[in-house]
């Protein structure tokens, strides 16, 4: 809460709504990596705005998850340069390895796989993001190594 108050102070008086996106990031990190309606209502109450103002923002930005996700959210970039360098193979490989399709979560709730648009890692393509970590210059061997390691340690994505 101290962090939230510190963020709100960055903006002029009466403009506290500017803190909405930063606070939603914190809320998502605190509440298992996704924003439930109850969480969003809570954020609205902190900023003294209507719930709908939170919903409309949360639903606009792709980083906010409006449905539960696995402990470890894997996001593979699929745009141009990453595609040129083999992003499709990476996606297919992870799908096979985890036995899920893009958009799904493993039965044990450990992994969710998503594809995302350009994350600014074109010179180090292909890449995937897990929480705030960038994993770049991927090869299928490197992906295997990471997945095995994350499985063993029960990895959680860090969001904040």
């Amino acid at each position, binding site marked *: 809460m101290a962090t939230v108050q510190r963020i709100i102070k960055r903006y*002029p008086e009466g403009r506290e709504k500017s803190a909405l996106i930063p606070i939603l990031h914190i809320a998502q990190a605190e509440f298992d990596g996704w924003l439930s309606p109850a969480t969003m209502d809570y954020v609205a109450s902190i900023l003294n705005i209507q719930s709908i103002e939170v919903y409309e923002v949360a639903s*606009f930005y792709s980083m906010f998850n409006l449905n539960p996700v696995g402990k470890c959210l894997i996001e593979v970039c699929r745009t141009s340069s990453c595609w040129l360098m083999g992003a499709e193979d990476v996606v297919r490989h992870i799908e096979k390895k985890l036995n899920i399709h893009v958009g799904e979560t493993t039965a044990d709730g450990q992994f969710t796989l998503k594809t995302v*648009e350009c994350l*600014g890692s074109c*010179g180090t393509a292909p890449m995937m993001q897990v929480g705030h970590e960038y994993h770049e210059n991927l090869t299928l061997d490197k992906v295997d190594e990471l997945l095995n390691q994350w499985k063993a340690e029960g990895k959680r994505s860090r969001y904040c």
Partner: protein
Amino acid sequence: MGKKLLLEHIDVPGINTLSVYRQKGGYASVEKALKTMTPEAVVEEVKVSGLRGRGGAGFPTGMKWSFLAKPEGVPRYLVCNADESEPGTFKDRYLMEKLPHLLIEGMITASYALGARTSYIYIRGEYFYVAQILEKAIAEAYEQGLLGKNIFNSGFDHDCYVQVGAGAYICGEETALLESLEGKRGNPRIKPPFPAIAGLYGCPTVVNNVETIAAVVPIVNQGGAAYAAIGVGKSTGTKLISASGHIKKPGVYEIELGVPVEEFIYSDEYCGGIINDRKLKAVVAGGSSVPILPADLILKTAAGEPRLMSYESLADGGFASGTMLGSGGFIVMDETASVVKNLYTFTRFYHHESCGQCSPCREGTGWMEKIMHKILDGDGTMSDIDLLWDIQAKIEGKTICPLGDAAAWPVASAIRHFRSEFEEYIRKGHSIKDVKHYYSTKGIPEPAY
């Protein structure tokens, strides 16, 4: 070796810390501006430098600054656009990660010139770790009195904050960025009024790209004329180019504007040539939005002149045979790459990123993605090519913000220069069916054929 104005000290160990950065002459531009120059004099130097916006549009920065309204008693803002999301572009990330103080120095100097007591760096949410690097650098700057009250005893106060976005390409459009910074959906505003008159919180605001703000530092230190002496014609100074795709040495390169494209692709100083020495097929020279050009047209203009890495030379020939420098996102494709499939990733991208506010873009981008998918799926018809052409033409110029144009140009240029490749996909139909990626990305089981 070309002259390095921004990345000169990038390999110095510890250059991300304030102490090392200052040992290398860091924050001299703040001291010089605050102690010896009027704000108007700083603006004048930037005008003289010929610096153009490095985010993609290439609008003269000094002129943008001079449009800023200065009504009495109304705060002004400087907002740094660090929402770098244009596919193929990663220069700002590199600069902020390695040289956070260069950006902060530029923010203070530029804010002094504009009379802004508060500035925000709006950075895309996915660059969270970069935002943390910036936060740390800002904290160091406050500790040393480079931010806060009465900087260098000049009476100038300044606060700078980092604002993190949450994943929306559209927020790189300056008015969408301002909406987002106000805690709203990133829907671009109708202009006018321009941000220089009514921007953040309705106050006069300048929005500049990371690299543009960083370039203010060498301009103030060495003078606008010295900066203008570098480069060619109206393309002055240096530019960061993000090079990716099928090249031996992908990465960020600072070039003096005017380097020949051929030298940029093949010389060891830059990209080092094509992977496995294959043949060059096509280049997207300035980020996904700019027209793709085939090898012969990117290396030489239609008139046979060597093509240079400059705003004017890349645009030579208009869209018929030229392209744009854009954000400097330089994507190289070799002979093995499919322009049609690459275009599919672009149409999917723009469909995903359209904010949905204007019908031509909201509907058109989705329609184009569907047709591209149909063609890749082996179910295309020759008339689909004309339909794609028709749709892109009906998006271009008919939307509030330039995302519509950005979605249209890659389609138009791919058809213009690579029509035969589309026709091949359509003629051969199912025999070159290559849709595994589509099913995998849509999360539906791949059908058995």
